[in-house]
């Protein structure tokens, strides 16, 4: 036979250079493992995944009431809605639009509730490149403070059918 089985008592603790190499690799693995939860809580960019259960129909109704109470205009055919600073805003994803267009103020903190009326969508804020899943049946809450003004585009980055490529929304910060 060309392949030999190892001898019965094959295990030996690593010695010398092998021990140093394994030790360094283990320390680096531990550092990277600790970095994951550390950056999640202290990285200031990551959502903690605050989510609640909600029926899609209930969320749609709540969004409609939010839009009717806070509409300040229209933007490219979509209601332009300005929530109260420090308050809650609602963003509904459905095939194939982001409803409504939100108008926020720089430096103010908002709690944006996101959910879907139909199927899974992906909320991708450009050019920030912040990405979150938007799933029917769950209210995903993002606590955000815009730090710069401008027009930010929302694209859907979870394939949702024929109109997925055109599912574009806006968040305007003044």
């Amino acid at each position, binding site marked *: *036979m*060309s392949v030999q089985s190892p001898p019965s*008592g*094959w*295990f030996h603790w690593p010695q010398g250079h092998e021990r140093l190499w394994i030790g360094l690799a283990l320390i680096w693995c531990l550092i990277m493992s600790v970095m994951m939860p550390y950056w999640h809580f202290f990285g200031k960019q990551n959502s903690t995944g605050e989510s*609640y*259960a909600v029926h899609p129909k209930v969320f749609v109704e709540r969004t409609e009431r939010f839009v009717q109470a806070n509409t300040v205009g229209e933007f490219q055919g979509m209601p332009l809605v300005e929530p109260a600073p420090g308050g809650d805003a609602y963003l509904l994803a459905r095939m194939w639009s982001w409803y409504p267009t939100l108008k926020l103020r720089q430096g103010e903190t908002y709690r944006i509730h996101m959910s879907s009326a139909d199927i899974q969508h992906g909320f991708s804020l450009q050019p920030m490149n912040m990405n979150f899943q938007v799933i029917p049946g*769950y209210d995903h809450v993002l606590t955000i403070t815009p730090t710069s003004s401008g027009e930010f585009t929302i694209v859907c980055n979870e394939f949702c059918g024929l109109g997925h490529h055109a599912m574009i929304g806006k968040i305007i910060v003044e």
Partner: protein
Amino acid sequence: MTLTEADATPVMDAANPAAPEQSVAGAPEPGERREDWHWLQRLLDNPWLLLLLGILVPFLSYTTWGWIELLLIKPAQLP
């Protein structure tokens, strides 16, 4: 190039069993007990235990943890 008997690969069959010094992986040698091995070797030489751990650990850390999180999710307040 001329081949000689020295170039031939030994054939192992019923007439030519494996040499006694070749051990079977995962089995103690005669006179040696499994309990004498280091615990890490006992683990790594036990494919069935490794299979069980390979299924159980991801199932607990991914699937079961996910189920628990889903069961603990609260209803939305929608203020």
